[in-house]
């Protein structure tokens, strides 16, 4: 059985091809301006990665997720990214009971049962602090090539700066001021991580963080963020291989349950 999951997020498009519960191909690319083009391209790349010379129409079932899930015409079903991350994380780490997903535009905390079903969740509202976008803005002003590259630098710091603003725009100003005061770059970067992790911790405060806790989404590729989250939650976070495709993987798993029905 050949199925696919497509996750069109705020910043990146992800696709996973699953054959009989085995990942045989995946792809990640920037969304760009047109979500439909992004969906087509990422699907093509995932098929290529799976060494398949077929089109998406030849697959048994496709599920789309992410904010543009309703716009993917070739998907037979949609599911929210919260449900997909729960399914995907549970598939990769069957002992998963709690998930932090930090994506481009939003962050989520999800409690799951032993079968990977969502039993409680919370998601950021207006605030962008604690999202990939927040980290990208900071990476830009601190002149680090990517959000992911900031992680190892943050881990070098023993004295993270305090970034207290809860608004991304104001936090940016705060970082600029601290930079002008001569604070060390690694301490500033660590401060940014600490601020983002504390926002996520506050957002998730009403949920039970029980082991195994899993960290997914594009930001999970940042090793510094993993550490700062662990400091806040006082628990270890497991990061699955390719944490960015967990939503697409979950969508593919849902597709698998619907294929042939």
């Amino acid at each position, binding site marked *: 059985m050949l199925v696919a999951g497509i996750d069109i997020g705020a910043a990146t498009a992800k696709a996973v091809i699953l054959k009989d519960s085995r990942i045989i191909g995946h792809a990640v690319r920037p969304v760009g301006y047109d979500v439909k083009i992004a969906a087509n391209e990422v699907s093509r790349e995932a098929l290529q990665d799976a060494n398949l010379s077929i089109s998406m129409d030849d697959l048994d079932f496709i599920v789309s997720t992410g*904010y543009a899930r309703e716009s993917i015409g070739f998907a037979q079903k949609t*599911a*929210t*990214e*919260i*449900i997909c991350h729960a399914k995907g994380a549970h598939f990769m780490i069957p002992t998963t009971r709690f998930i932090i997903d930090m994506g481009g535009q*939003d962050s989520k905390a999800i409690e799951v049962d032993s079968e990977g*079903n*969502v*039993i*409680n*969740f*919370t*998601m950021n*509202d*207006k605030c962008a602090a604690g999202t990939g976008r927040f980290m990208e803005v900071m990476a830009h002003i601190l002149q680090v090539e990517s959000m992911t590259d900031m992680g190892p630098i943050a881990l070098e710091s023993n004295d993270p700066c305090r970034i207290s603003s809860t608004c991304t725009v104001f936090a940016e100003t705060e970082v600029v001021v601290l930079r002008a005061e001569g604070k060390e770059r690694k301490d500033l970067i660590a401060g940014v991580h600490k601020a983002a992790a504390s926002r996520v911790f506050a957002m998730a*405060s*009403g949920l039970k963080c029980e082991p195994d806790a899993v960290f997914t989404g594009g930001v999970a590729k940042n090793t510094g963020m993993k550490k700062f989250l662990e400091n806040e939650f006082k628990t270890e976070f497991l990061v699955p291989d390719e944490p960015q495709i967990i939503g697409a993987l979950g969508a593919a798993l849902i597709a698998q349950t619907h294929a042939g029905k």
Partner: protein
Amino acid sequence: MKQYYDDLFSLCGFEDEEINNERFRIKATLEKLELGPEDMERADSWVRQYHDVSLMGVRKLLGAWLKELIDLVLAKEDGKKIVYYGFPAILGPGLMLSASSDKVFVSAPDMVLDHTMGQIFNKLTPILEAGEANGLPPGHAMCSLWQAKIGGVVKGMIPVPDFALASSYYCDMGSKADDLVTAFYGTPMAYIDGIMDSHWGDFPDFLPERVEYLGGQINQALKKAEDVLGIKIAPDAWEKSQENSKQFRGYLVRLVELMKADPVPLSVVELELLEALSGSSAGRGIREGIKAMEILVKELEERVKAGIGVTEKGAPRVMVRLGHTSDPRVTRLLEDCGLAVPLTFILGSFGGVRVEPKGTYNTPGEIIANYEMTGGYYHGTEAQIQFYEKAAGIMRLDGFVAQYLYNCRPVATISHAQKKYLEEKTGLPVLSLEIDNFDSRTHSADSLRTKVETFAEMLKAKKHK
């Protein structure tokens, strides 16, 4: 001769004769509201898309709001003394003033604008922007209900009031926003002071001192109203004011009974129109609302008998705090995601959740205060949780959507505690959802849909286990 607004008003339940009799007033109202033929076309499509116009009762209900709007916009020309009060606040004093003199027009103008310029014409934003430009700037966490009131007045769409009843008894931003009306126009005000909090575990009991204090405040406000408006509160004003509102409430009780059916026969979009009217009109809106309810209840009885509903049979049932006052899309989203909403917090007051009044009081203020105290709204967090808990049993709920406005102290502050305690007490899931119930400019539709859809899927999975 047919006019550009005839089709819309007919869609909203106006009879041809009513349109003809009121042509001059409709035209004058639309001119003041800057509504032209294009706006009627947009409104027609908006209403058909988001309101259940297959029910004549709903159409008449929309018409009731329009009639309230016309009377509000033309109140000065009608030679009325105009009194504004805030929502949610204490309706009683307004009802008594209205019942004491036919020269007085009493209204919650923000709610009227939301339900007409928002729910019908989808043109509330320019009014909100006018409010923002006049003392309630964007980004200052100001409630958009007050922006609608100030914006409507400064744009000249609704008249400057002769008197304002300000109450911080439930909402502490309302009285401050009413101060702006005084600052801009010198409108005299009466402040009804009070405290909404009580000890955990007190409710449904409450201290008589609270009734006496609040009652005293209301009495003072009524006295000031008499002086400013040059009227006398009629000795039978309370009884008279209750004639209409009791009848309306009676229908709401019947409606709550009908909403116990599975599938639920009416959309929460329309529930919101009903519950809001009960707290926003002291005049024609409520009288026309009674006629609409008479039709609607019969139509819904038919639907229940035939097993017709707005969601699938067996859909998870959730209670919400409040529907969206100005944007039906937001409320409709709950049903689009497969959730049935048989009850809102306010409507719960009419269906067995409210407790009986205690004690006997003789002054008008104390009678009103005693009545208001029986609703959990005027108590602390725990009393509200009791309301939800009771409703869960009565309406066979599967969960709660506890919306909160980030800029609303009473609602936002308790939101997360409420989720925790409700989940513990009822064992039912609670979605704590940030949503501005008065302004749809401040949320991301996609983020909202993701949350509601996930919650709906969660409840469906739980139900099918």
